């Protein structure tokens, strides 16, 4: 494959075109064909994204695999793509996860199978587009377009209260992004370009930066989600079908945090520095407050949804802790570790939360209940499944040797440099994260067989074993040897650290 081969375009359009093709089998009679076709498309997309890693040049922070074509010339909007060490792992995470979503929905989705599969494939393309867009308008269009398939997924294949959940989800996120649009247009007027990299170099006064920062914050905070704009997530998760929950937790939440590193930090470094107290406070509230809320959930999906919010708090904390380090120690040592920890946490959370939702999906398919109280003693009838669930639960609780540990560990180490008490509050997740996860495990997995329905459960089949096994392998691999993942990030993160330390005033 030559260096100028448009890998990114292929990774975006292959699933989208493939998704449209799948729609031709939209009659449920042709469901088997739709499934096979979707699997082929998703695997092909995954294979297409692999060279992004293998041919990645770790020595530079410059965008790689770039493509650029004029799109709307009147407004100087370009179809320009490229990845660096921050976005590349996220793209691979996306194509990796989609394969398992297709497999996980294999037998479960019997109603409008082709449309279901197509939605996910189209969404995959749009999400890869968001992570690789270098033009802010392209980014914005894809960012908004992504809502449509998700809206349909929850609205059509969702649970009983799906209409409330979809509208809440849509309005919340849509409202947030409008502010981002205003900020982008403002910067276009200033710089005469919609290029994100041009925005990085755009000089702006502190007041302007603060306004832009806040506009971005509203857009991204909803997506992450950060407290107090998080309440759409539990509802969306509870109503979404398993695949929807997985894509939501594993990828869509990362859009928000990705926005912070791609836009907020490099474009408005001075505002980020001025308002870092706000970001740190919100992150700590997410970590501590949400952990308490997770503890009392009765619905497994809600519990994992809240746990996601709590874990995403580590990502935002890692991004914004650096300013305090600089202020308190006078040296930039430790900033990069916080950011890299946050990036690792994004990838790891993709695996773990995806796996947790898949596990709940496995139970839901058999029992049609997500309530913890309806379960008990699942290990007696589903030993293999339980082994997986306990593994993912431990990863969720941040056990060393699993990917869940790596990011949290790095962020806590970094936070300690900034301030003892920030690290102290962040580290409470060691206790609370374990508490809500293991308490759920105790009530669902262990104990005597709770009722007849549990007694009738059958253990996971080969398809489910493959899905959970692959994710388990990923979780363990990143936990035992995270160095290769970190390797690709260094240059980009070092550049980012320089960017946020240089004032734009």
């Amino acid at each position, binding site marked *: 494959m030559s260096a100028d081969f448009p890998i990114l375009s292929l990774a975006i359009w292959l699933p989208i075109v493939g998704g449209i093709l799948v729609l031709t089998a939209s009659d449920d009679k042709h469901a088997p064909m739709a499934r096979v076709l979707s699997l082929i498309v998703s695997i092909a997309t995954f294979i297409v994204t692999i060279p992004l890693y293998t041919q990645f040049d770790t020595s530079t922070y410059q965008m790689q695999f770039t493509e650029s074509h004029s799109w709307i010339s009147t407004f100087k909007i370009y179809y320009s793509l490229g990845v660096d060490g921050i976005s590349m792992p996220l793209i691979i995470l996306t194509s990796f996860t989609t394969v398992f979503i297709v497999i996980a929905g294999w037998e479960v989705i019997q109603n409008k199978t082709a449309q279901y599969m197509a939605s996910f494939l189209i969404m995959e393309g749009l999400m890869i587009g968001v992570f690789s867009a270098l033009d802010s308008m392209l980014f914005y269009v894809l960012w908004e377009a992504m809502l449509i398939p998700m809206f349909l997924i929850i609205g059509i294949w969702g649970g009983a209260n799906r209409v409330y959940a979809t509208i809440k989800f849509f309005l919340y996120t849509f409202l947030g992004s409008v502010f981002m649009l205003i900020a982008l247009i403002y910067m276009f007027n200033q710089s005469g370009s919609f290029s994100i990299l041009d925005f990085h170099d755009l000089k702006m006064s502190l007041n302007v930066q603060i306004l832009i920062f806040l506009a971005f914050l509203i857009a991204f905070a909803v997506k992450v989600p950060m407290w107090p704009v998080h309440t*759409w997530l539990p509802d969306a998760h509870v109503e979404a079908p398993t695949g929807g929950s997985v894509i939501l937790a594993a990828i869509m939440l990362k859009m928000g945090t990705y926005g912070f590193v791609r836009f907020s930090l490099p474009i408005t470094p001075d505002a980020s520095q001025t308002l870092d107290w706000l970001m740190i406070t919100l992150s700590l509230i997410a970590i501590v407050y949400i952990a308490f809320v997770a503890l009392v959930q009765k619905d497994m999906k809600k519990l994992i949804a809240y746990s996601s919010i709590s874990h995403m708090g580590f990502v935002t904390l890692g991004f914004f802790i650096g300013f305090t380090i600089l202020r308190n120690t006078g040296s930039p040592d430790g900033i990069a570790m916080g950011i890299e920890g946050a990036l690792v946490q994004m990838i790891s959370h993709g695996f773990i939360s995806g796996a947790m939702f898949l596990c709940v999906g496995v139970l839901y398919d058999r029992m049609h209940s997500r309530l913890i109280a309806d379960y008990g003693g699942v290990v007696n009838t589903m030993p293999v499944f339980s082994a997986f669930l306990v593994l993912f639960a*431990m990863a969720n609780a941040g056990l*060393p040797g699993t990917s869940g540990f790596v990011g949290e560990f790095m962020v806590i180490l970094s936070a300690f440099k900034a301030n003892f008490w920030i*690290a102290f509050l962040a580290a409470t997740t060691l206790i609370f994260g374990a*508490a809500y996860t*293991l308490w759920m495990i105790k009530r669902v997995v262990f104990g005597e067989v709770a009722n007849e329905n549990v007694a009738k459960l059958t253990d996971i089949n080969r398809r489910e074993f493959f899905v959970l096994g692959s994710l388990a392998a990923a979780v363990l691999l990143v936990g035992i040897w995270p160095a290769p993942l*970190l390797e690709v990030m*260094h240059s980009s993160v070092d550049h980012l650290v320089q960017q946020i330390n240089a004032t734009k005033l």
Partner: protein
Amino acid sequence: MPNIYLAIALSPLVGAIVAGLFGKSIGRTGAHWVTTVSVAISFVLSVVVFKHVFADGGYYNASVYTWLVSDGIKFEIGFLIDQLTATMMIVVTFVSLMVHIYTIGYMHDDSGYQRFFSYISLFTFSMLMLVMSNNFMQLFFGWEAVGLVSYLLIGFWFKKETAIYANMKAFLVNRVGDFGFLLGIAAVLMYFGSLDYVTVFAAAPDMVGKTMQIIPGSDWSIMTVMCILLFIGAMGKSAQVPLHVWLPDSMEGPTPISALIHAATMVTAGIFMVARMSPLFEFSETALSFVLVIGAITAFFMGLLGLVQNDIKRVVAYSTLSQLGYMTVALGASAYAAGIFHLGTHAFFKALLFLGAGSVIIAMHHDQDIRNMGGLRKYMPITWITFLIGSLALIGAPGFSGFFSKDSIIEAVHASNLPGSDFAYLCVLGGVFITALYSFRMYFLVFHGKERMDEHTRAHLHESPAVVTVPLIMLAIPSVIIGYILVDDMAFGSYFGKSIFVLPQHDVLGQLSKDFHGPMGMITHALTQAPLWLAFGGVATAWFLYMKRPDIPEKIKNSATMGYKVLTEHYYFDKAYSYVFAGGSLGIGRFFWTVGDEKLIDGLMVNGTAKSIGWFSSIIRNFQTGYLYHYAFVMIIGLSVMLGWIVFN
């Protein structure tokens, strides 16, 4: 040698994976063979390493692979092999091997046979990674990994409600300790810029006198903060007050686990950790005092609880808590070598006592209540004799291994000048009497006196099979002799070389060594000292109270109801914790959820916004009725107003 180290650590891991993933295909026999052999390989190689370190002065410190690099800091997985490590490796692999063999008999009829072997081999791997580590990160890795296996094993019988409660409790209480430990590691990284032992220890003296501000305006010694944070981790794992509550409950797990993990090896990880970090702790007398006092409280007050337990395993469990207190006291008094010495002897005799208790439990058809036992010595002579040996070692009868290690500790505390050492001395002295009393209360109630079991059980009483008794004998031997052999070198000599660091002004063992004239001399010296007579007093009291006049304990129980209640309720720690922490967290969680999320954010802000928009539009809607005549009417009025305005202007 590096390949040998790798083989020692990985061999049990391979065994665990094979038994865990392919348990069905290799069957029960296959599972116990593959795991036992893998641990035996580790043991044999550990002996080779032991010899290499002690006979040839071997030392090794290198990394195996780089875990990750961030911010220019390398996090590595690697091994540090010195005297301390080599000693721990022998203890861990030997006890583990004995437990593997014993398990073949003990778990014979259990349906989770393969799973059990997989877990205990995984434990051995984790524990080895912990002790062989050359850096703080890997130490934490092993630390949490043994916690995980402990969680899995306490809850091994997952149908038992008490077991799955106990394992969650154990994990969470340990996590409280790990919380402190992790912050301690973060402090190490921040101030030393490295997590590598050797680098950090070399830089430690420069850190003395430097301060940090935790609360603005007050300066705290960095060394003190760091050491206390690290020690909080040790308090969790080594079950020191107030983080001890998980250990008694951990007895819900199968007995081999109680011996391996909750007596001999895992719970001593905290002791090992502090000894390993002696180059840090030595530079903070405040931290040492803290360690000393916590250890002393644990040694005495947890021993007291052993007096009122009726479950044979719980008596031994409280005795473990108390003995861990002794080890901690030794660390606090800077007598690290004595602490590790006691760790070693304790591992043998406590594993022996637990496995002996297990043998009794098998004979009693899983009845663990000592009130239902009695006179068992006739039926199970090997268990009886070995249990007696274990008990004598535990109370420190002269010549037995526990005598040498415990006496070194008591003498060291006596010689220490740190704040709190007088209190600690009283505690450890009192503890000697208490230890003898509860140990022999149990011993007499189980093996002597009236046979109180029911007819059916009595008819079936018999000695356990060889896979059970052979490990008992194998453990009884070191319980008797190991102290005599090692005391000279280990407690008072240069056994640990440079692996343990003691400042000259703290070197209590060095002072004591001047008056030390061989193990025989120590025994004759002890005859004139308080501890020995306290121990005999304890045994005599136990004999009098439980053999001669069993009515007296009843009377005490009935007259001192308050005190008795406090003891049976374990000083109300469990109740207070479950009320304050568990209940409190749930209360806060419910409040945040229902009031914060549902009422304020969703109710007021989100749905409130939606509702007010709805209300506003419902008014606006009235203007758009869709009736033509309404619109015509409005148009006419509008037109007339406009016309009128034009006309009259």
